[in-house]
């Protein structure tokens, strides 16, 4: 076993401070609230077989594409668009948005860049996937809709 660096032995004499009581309590309250409001369907989602979920997601994606084709056609006349949109609104009420989250797929440091005013910026490129969980009230099935996107963050650098 390698001998610890002398600096590491001094670092071991430092420890991260505990969170403040208020913050700890806030988070614990939040966890209690989340546990109360999270329906059983979401937590028991793994009970749905993986192949079923794939079919549901695939079906949802196909339905969304079909809807994207149908809606512009439906707007050719005011009368027909109303007729087409009414069932869509009724259908959307059957789905409840259970949660939305942004998940980082990858994060890449693109180094420092110079801004137009001469200041230095640190660039980070993120690949993020936005995920929405939708609950079908009728069947109790939870569906996940994913939307990937890329973001570039520029942060001013003040310390070197």
């Amino acid at each position, binding site marked *: 076993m390698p001998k610890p660096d002398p600096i590491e032995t001094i670092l071991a004499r430092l420890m*991260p401070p505990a969170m403040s009581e208020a913050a700890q309590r806030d988070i614990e309250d*939040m966890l209690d609230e989340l546990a109360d409001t999270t329906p059983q369907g979401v937590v028991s989602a793994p009970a749905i077989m993986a192949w079923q979920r794939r079919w549901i997601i695939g079906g949802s994606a196909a339905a969304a594409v079909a809807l994207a084709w149908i809606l512009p056609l439906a707007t050719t006349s005011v009368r027909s668009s109303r007729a087409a949109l009414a069932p869509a609104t009724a259908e959307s009420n059957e789905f409840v948005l259970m949660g*939305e989250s942004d998940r980082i797929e990858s994060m890449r440091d693109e180094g420092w860049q110079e801004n137009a005013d001469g200041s230095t910026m640190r660039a980070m490129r993120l690949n993020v996937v936005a995920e929405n969980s939708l609950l079908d009230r009728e069947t109790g099935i939870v569906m996940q809709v994913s939307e990937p996107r890329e973001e570039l963050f520029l942060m001013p650098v003040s310390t070197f």
Partner: protein
Amino acid sequence: METTTSAWKQWLAENGPRLLLFARGWSHSRHDAEDLVQEAILRMWHHQADKGGGPPDLPLVFSTIRFCGLNHHRSESRRRKREEAIVYLNDFQDVWLDPVCEDDEEALLLRAAVEKLSPKLREVVVMKFWAGCTFLQISETLAISPNTAASRYRYALEQLSHELRRIKELRHA
């Protein structure tokens, strides 16, 4: 559900200080860092719902804190531009690390040196030393190679050693 909540609370009690220390690198004050940790835990709760609902792995939470920190940084920059006229007072009690023994002068000197490390080096030291992550886990969290993570850690230790020696020499001069 009660068991899940208890597991999360126990996980928070065990890892809260580590998460807080990491979040300090992405915030201006302890209070902001605690908000970041809370935001990250909220995101993790939803993320874990699909995976049985249990507490997440630590490296994943570090990634999420970074993401939340970046988002926070964007809105903070906008807010700062609006509030440029306000003078912020330094809170001298707002420290990142506590010494195990209160009068450990060497540890106190090193604490200041850790806070002065560049963010890139500091986050590797925090994850390696206080969170106990492997270089592989660090590399996955920070999107760098394991070798880069290891070399950043070594370089950080060298810098800390150099800084500690410099401060001691200054005091004795």
